[in-house]
């Protein structure tokens, strides 16, 4: 096996592993008992998608995909913060009627 063939094989294996990790995180997203579980799974899926962008940027030689990864990192952080805020606020809203 030449070096180039080895690199192509390892690219394919990496792509399979990363896509598998997306699928496994999606199972937790669908199953997750609480809202926080779902947000954690969504965060994991965003990080896996950044990895997918990296692998595809290597195998197609398209550097624009790294910009996609950068934007995904930005948007994923904002989504996590917003959903965590929402989860916290929702608890306070639920608690308030019992305090009165």
């Amino acid at each position: 096996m030449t070096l180039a063939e080895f690199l192509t094989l390892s690219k394919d294996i990496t792509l399979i592993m990363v896509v598998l990790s997306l699928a496994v995180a999606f199972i937790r997203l669908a199953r997750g008992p609480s809202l926080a579980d779902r947000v954690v799974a969504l965060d994991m899926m965003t990080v896996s998608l950044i990895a997918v962008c990296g692998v595809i940027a290597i195998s197609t030689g398209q550097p624009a995909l790294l910009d996609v990864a950068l934007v995904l990192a930005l948007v994923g952080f904002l989504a996590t913060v917003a959903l965590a805020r929402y989860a916290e606020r929702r608890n306070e809203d639920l608690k308030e009627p019992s305090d009165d």
Partner: protein
Amino acid sequence: MIEIVVAAFLLLGGFFALIAAIGVLRMPDVLTRMHASTKAGTLGSSLILIGCAIFKADAEITVRVIAIILFLMLTAPIGAHMLGRAAARDEKHRKAD
């Protein structure tokens, strides 16, 4: 020679991403799941992006990769902290009921 280094980074990164996702699926509660996704997940995608930078060996791409990794490392603790606080309060609230 450089192919072997790139392949090692890629395979290690894919392995860590997969381990992180399995941790998110298999760990028993929210806080331990967060522990898996925040640390192993960030490490996995960072390794894959470093492999990308080594493969291209181009200044433009290396700068982008460094920006993405810096951003991931900077934001992962903040997001995990906020989520952990929400989850801990949720648990306390549920126990109080």
